């Protein structure tokens, strides 16, 4: 099957999957507690509770509620967030931008360090650099993020005072326009070096904390794959041809070792998104993760449904992209079979 046909087929199936996911999401959030828990208090009479239920359409049969919710989503109305005291559609893009910025920064950290360390270790199998890399990798995978994050805060924020907390300096942040919601990009668009530096400076610690855990996974996978590739006949053939070891490693073995690693990178994206919940709470990062944590605890179902639906759709798309990239890297893979 042609790559184009495969992508089209997957995209055609996507709406059906999204409808299925939306039904599951809606059902689960209805089972998970009162959708208006955030507004309830014991002082309310049953008629007052009923009044709030009516305000959010909860006096309708569940299937009507689902249809209203789905209709709202198609019209861009994702409901009202009690936690944020604003329509979800107003707040979600801002939070999403903050989280994506963090996740992408952490992803860059993880990719760069993971592939570099993995290649470094794989090429020096069972030697001291390999052992050191293993220790680094295992540490990243096993250190609890909340602990590692707080440790970094103690040292670099509280003790040394060289790293900030939060996403921005409030004054600098307010000094530029935010057309994309991505602080780094907005700073570049505004031509403000001060704002750009502020954005990067605030990103360093949370991105490092979040990316470190993912670094470990990528590095280990990269190392294993590279070790395997270096034992293949084609590597011996390349060496026999007289190619420099550097070229053998980078142009041949590493490229093939990237195939299984790319699959892990796709999964790592999910890890990074999940990880942002802890990281955002610790670093006071105003993103989706922190908003979701509050929404779970305070029963803000409108926000939760939007978030779960969004992440479900995102995963479907990311899986599609990973499949395509995978096929591109490894010509032996045939799509659609």
């Amino acid at each position: 099957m042609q790559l184009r046909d495969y992508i089209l087929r997957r995209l055609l199936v996507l709406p059906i999957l999204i409808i299925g996911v939306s039904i599951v999401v809606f059902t689960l959030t209805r089972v998970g507690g009162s959708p208006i828990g955030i507004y309830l208090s014991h002082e309310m009479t049953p008629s007052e509770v009923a009044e709030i239920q009516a305000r959010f359409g909860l006096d309708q049969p569940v299937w009507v509620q689902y249809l209203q919710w789905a209709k709202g989503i198609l019209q861009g109305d994702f409901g009202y967030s009690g936690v944020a005291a604003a329509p979800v559609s107003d707040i979600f893009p801002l939070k999403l931008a903050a989280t994506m910025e963090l996740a992408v920064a952490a992803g860059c950290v993880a990719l760069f360090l993971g592939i570099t360390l993995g290649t470094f270790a794989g090429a020096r199998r069972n030697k001291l650099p390999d052992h050191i890399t293993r220790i680094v990798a295992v540490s990243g995978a096993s250190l609890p993020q909340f602990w590692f994050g707080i440790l970094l805060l103690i040292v670099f924020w509280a003790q040394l005072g060289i790293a900030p907390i939060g996403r921005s300096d409030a004054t600098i942040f307010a000094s530029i326009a935010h057309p994309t919601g991505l602080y780094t990009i907005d700073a570049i668009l505004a031509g403000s070096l001060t704002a750009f530096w502020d954005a990067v400076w605030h990103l360093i610690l949370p991105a490092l904390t979040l990316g470190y855990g993912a670094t470990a996974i990528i590095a280990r996978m990269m190392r294993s794959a590279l070790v395997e590739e270096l034992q293949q006949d084609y590597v011996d053939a390349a060496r026999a041809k007289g190619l420099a070891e550097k070229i053998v490693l980078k142009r041949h073995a590493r490229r093939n070792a990237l195939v299984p690693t790319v699959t892990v990178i796709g999964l790592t994206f999910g890890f990074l998104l999940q990880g942002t919940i802890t990281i955002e709470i610790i670093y006071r990062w105003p993103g989706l993760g922190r908003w979701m944590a509050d929404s779970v605890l305070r029963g803000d179902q409108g926000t939760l449904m939007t978030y779960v639906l969004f992440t479900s759709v995102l995963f479907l798309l990311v899986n599609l992209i990973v499949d395509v990239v995978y096929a591109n890297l490894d010509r032996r893979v045939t799509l659609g079979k």
Partner: protein
Amino acid sequence: MTTIKWRNHLTAALVGGALAFALPLDATAQVNNPGLLVHAADDEPTTLDPAQVEPGEGGETVILQVYDRLLDFGSDSPELIPSLAVEVPSVDNGGISADGLTYTFKLREGVTFHDGTAFSADDVKYSWDRAIEMDLPEGNAGALADVIASSEVVDDMTFSVTLNDPSASFLNSVVTAMVASVVSQDAVEANGGIEAGVPNQYMAGNMVGTGPYKFVTWNRNENLQLEVNDNYWGDNAKLDVRIEIGGDPDVRVLGLRAGEFDTIETDPSFVADIEGADGVTIFKGGLLLEPLHIGMNLNIPEGSLPPEDTISEDFFHDPRIRQAFNHAFDYEAFLNGPLAGYGEFNPHYVPIGLFGHDASAPVYNKQNAAEAERLFREAGVWDEGFSVSVITEEGNLFALMCLVLKDSLERLNPKFRINVLAVAESVFDDAHASNPLEYAMWAKNADPAADPNFYLNAYAHPDGEWGEVHGFGNGYRDAAKIAGLIDSAAIELDPAKRAATYAEIQRELYEDPMWIIGAQEGIVMAHRSWLEGFAMQPLWPRPSLKFSLFDK
């Protein structure tokens, strides 16, 4: 479900340990963020609209700073002081009619709202009528609607209100409530106006008041910024304010120690992490007016209890059982453990520090195992034992209070079983708001108020909020007497007679308790030592701070 937020404790231990070995912080050398007060808050507001805010909710903190009311409480006493009204109405100054029904407020001239419009009596009437007309169930409009028969703009600077019945608590509890804040009529009308039963989204996220602070911006889940109102009618505030919202409590502690935050919201369980830190002062003084209590349900629907509960639905109808629980609770363990020694034991049910509190009234303040055993035996539950669940929010003092209850009862008799259901806030709120309530026991704190009538009406009156939900009428030895005493005190305008009635009520409730009151929590607030003018007033909404008083 009994797992209390272990992660917090583990983190606290790790943070504390790491800090102990770390280099000393040099945060005292300079004042961080000069001209700006950074307050790290626990909760995010769900609204900034006085007509929508629920008492005790995070929005009240901001409303207190940006809006004014007719009267207020000073920082150092529970006495009322003038605010937008120029004097506190009394019978002597003609502000209260002889029959106690009509209150007349002379208003302050020359006051302007933050949008530049002039303040007048029209705005007061508009603000109060607006809350009553919107009547949002999550808000506190009932505080006004339940007592006010009519209101009138006498002239531009005079506003009068007539009550349904005489009320000894009107000024203390109603006029000072956040729902009685005065909003800009022009701002509301320009942004959605008033619609019955429908929140005003503009007012939920914006503020136009007359207070010492002007609202600047609210970055959801991040921070909320206020700036000094240079045209304030009173003493100008000195510092702009940034309220940092939510986040991990341990990070708030860390931020205070590092000098990044000037004030943080904490409870006594954090004292050990802060005490002795350079440049940090722990304000300890007085008590919060939010007694920590465990409710006993006398109105349990048949078959609704959790399966592990073995008690009958009428278990708490027997006053001996309720007394026995009160005797069995290990008060000192709770005070010296979770409360770190900051608190007092108080009687049923007028908090210490409030008018009407009788210091000589009997108090459950010491575990009396022998008396508890005697009462449990008399009630016929000692030999067979029982299992009962208590539901609460996870990860806070309430959950710890439940664990103390569990430990107290299970040590008293191994056949007793207390199942602590520590659940997420939303799950607890759902259960707590249901009527009838499907749990035999639950733990929380009382809502704060400035007048004893609020507490007794809400928590002791057989026909009051909890009397009705919990079915107090099923258990009081003499429900009519309790109701009569509370009702008569509510309309008694002679303070001496009123205090005497409250003293009698407290004695009655000691013999016939409907709650286990673990303690009245002490005020503990940590702030940077460079902060000047620090004061707390428990009658102000949590965290009981007025930022306009501070300087650094």
